[in-house]
């Protein structure tokens, strides 16, 4: 098998690629050019054949999602790029937008052509001001160079791209929460169905794709579905993948590998354990994923194999923890996050995330009884599947894994005056002791 050639990150560290001319020099806009010469349905078929699954977290087949958009209704349709990247541990989309904005713009234009949408909104989290500025400049250049506007590359197909800044809310990464926010409302997820493919942005059929997903599209059109399909572990897990590695590694960063790279290989790429520490646990797919132990060192990180191991690939945000980490405290931090970010709409999630934070805090401080640990063990199942969106399930993931796979960590805290690990005891709101 040929050596893997990084393609998603090919323009990282090449600032010239932020202009149309510079991007073209690196081979850019060939995918769009090829797409415009095909029938829109043929573009969808090519994406389907590539096996590309959504890179935002859910892993839904991209071509299938596009094919749900009704054809020839005469009504407007929209592409919405989900650039709300807020899953703790995830920073790959920021890299793509800051270093290769035209790759994303090209992906948006191809998606628009395939489903018949004249407009893309890139919904970017409000904190990413640098990425938003870079995208705005690249879009302006795109209009000047005939990439965007009334006739994309002279084809007669119209496409406009706009950057829309969010304002700080994790839930706006949930696709219907994002749509609400785009429409100028509180980002509270909608009841589904109807799915966005039928009733999405402004009541119109809408495709919502993650940044990295859209960035794969030009490559698929340029090199063909067969090229994409040949990368990865099997036909359900294809293509190049960005892994955001953080925590206790020597060189945290974004690493591009064929999807399904074993965790151990990724750890090596990131320079190994920080200061020679020992691996205690890792989270393979962002804060929503179950925590895994060192017995999974050689786990191939693709959608299906990580799921089989009881966790999920999610956004492929890999957080590495060494033996100095208290897993109760780590899980508490994630529970605090979900409690803060729950939109409050559904009772199981709103109340359950609060309960999980309170109980974990009691355990961490040594105030919890056995009975309360028992309650903590039950809460994840009361939330998961009982709320409108996936935030509840996400919140349940890490807590369930702590109770089921790392019960010993909890026991270390009971009847012992709390956490036995040496660390700074800073609680943001300063009221933990009083509870």
């Amino acid at each position, binding site marked *: 098998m040929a050596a893997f050639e990084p393609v998603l990150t090919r323009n990282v560290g090449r600032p010239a690629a932020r202009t149309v001319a510079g991007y073209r020099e690196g081979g850019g806009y060939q995918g769009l050019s090829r797409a415009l010469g095909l029938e829109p349905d043929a573009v969808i078929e090519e994406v389907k054949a590539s096996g590309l699954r959504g890179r935002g977290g859910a892993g839904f087949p991209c071509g299938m999602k596009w094919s749900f958009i009704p054809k020839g209704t005469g009504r407007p349709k929209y592409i919405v790029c989900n650039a709300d990247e807020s899953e703790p541990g995830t920073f790959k989309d920021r890299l793509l937008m800051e270093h290769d904005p035209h790759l994303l713009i090209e992906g948006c234009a191809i998606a628009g052509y395939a489903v018949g949408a004249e407009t893309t909104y890139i919904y970017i989290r409000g904190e990413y001001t640098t990425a938003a500025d870079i995208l705005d400049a690249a879009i302006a250049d795109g209009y000047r160079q005939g990439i965007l506007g009334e006739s994309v590359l002279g084809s007669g197909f119209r496409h406009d791209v706009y950057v829309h800044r969010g304002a700080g*809310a994790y839930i706006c990464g949930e696709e219907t929460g994002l749509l609400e926010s785009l429409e100028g409302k509180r980002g509270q997820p909608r009841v589904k169905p109807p799915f966005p493919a039928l009733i999405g942005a402004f009541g119109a059929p809408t495709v919502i794709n993650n940044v990295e997903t859209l960035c794969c599209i030009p490559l698929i059109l340029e090199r063909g579905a067969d090229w994409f399909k040949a990368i990865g572990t099997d036909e359900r897990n294809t293509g190049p993948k960005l892994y955001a590695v953080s925590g206790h590694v020597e060189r945290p960063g974004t690493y591009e590998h064929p999807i399904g790279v074993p965790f151990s290989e990724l750890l090596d790429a990131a320079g190994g354990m920080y200061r020679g520490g020992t691996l205690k646990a890792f989270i393979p797919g962002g804060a929503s994923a179950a925590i895994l132990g060192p017995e999974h060192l050689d786990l191939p990180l693709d959608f299906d194999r990580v799921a089989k191991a009881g966790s999920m690939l999610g956004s492929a945000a890999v957080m590495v923890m060494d033996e100095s980490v208290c897993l109760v405290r*780590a899980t508490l931090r994630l529970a605090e996050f979900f409690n803060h970010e729950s939109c409050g709409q559904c009772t199981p999630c709103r109340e359950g995330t609060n309960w999980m934070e309170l109980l974990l805090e009691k355990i961490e401080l040594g105030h919890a009884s056995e009975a309360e640990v028992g309650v903590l063990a039950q809460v994840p199942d009361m939330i998961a599947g009982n709320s409108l969106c996936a935030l509840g399930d996400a919140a349940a993931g890490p807590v369930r894994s702590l109770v089921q796979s790392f019960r010993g960590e909890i026991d270390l805290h009971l009847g012992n005056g709390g956490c036995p690990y040496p660390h700074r005891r800073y609680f943001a709101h300063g009221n933990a002791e009083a509870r």
Partner: protein
Amino acid sequence: MASPGPASTAAAAEGRPAFPPEARERLDQIRRRYPQDKAALIPALHIAQELWGGWLPEEAVLAVAAELGLPPAEVWGVVSFYDLFHTHPVGRHRLRVCSNLPCQLRGADEILEVLRAELGVGEDEVTADGRCSYVHFECLGSCDTAPMMMIDDRYEENLTPERVREILGEID
């Protein structure tokens, strides 16, 4: 608190809060991007927050409501949902320290301790000279350069306690 906000339009002359002409022009350009005016609400709030010194006093919210023809209560509802909108005064510089797990693993708590010690105020409080306010924040998407914080719109990465003290000395 005296408002640093705009006061040059006719509406403002009549005592009704409003955007100054340059800001209205910016907003009008943004509105054209959407099939519904309301979609410009979050962009409008970002503009208002710039105009009113980093937060949204009642006057700013009323101005946004008037610009977009929305009930003020609806605008308040949106303001209160998002972490980047503030309904109380903030420092001239706003420090947001990422404190989620990847940053916590690499020392975010220590960064917060340094800020508390150096600035002498708690989270969400403004220093007596009006210069700074800080908060702990959820993941800012810069875990490869942890620990990190945002100062206004800028990312400061790979922080150490020394570097934080240096930065505090650099900002006006």
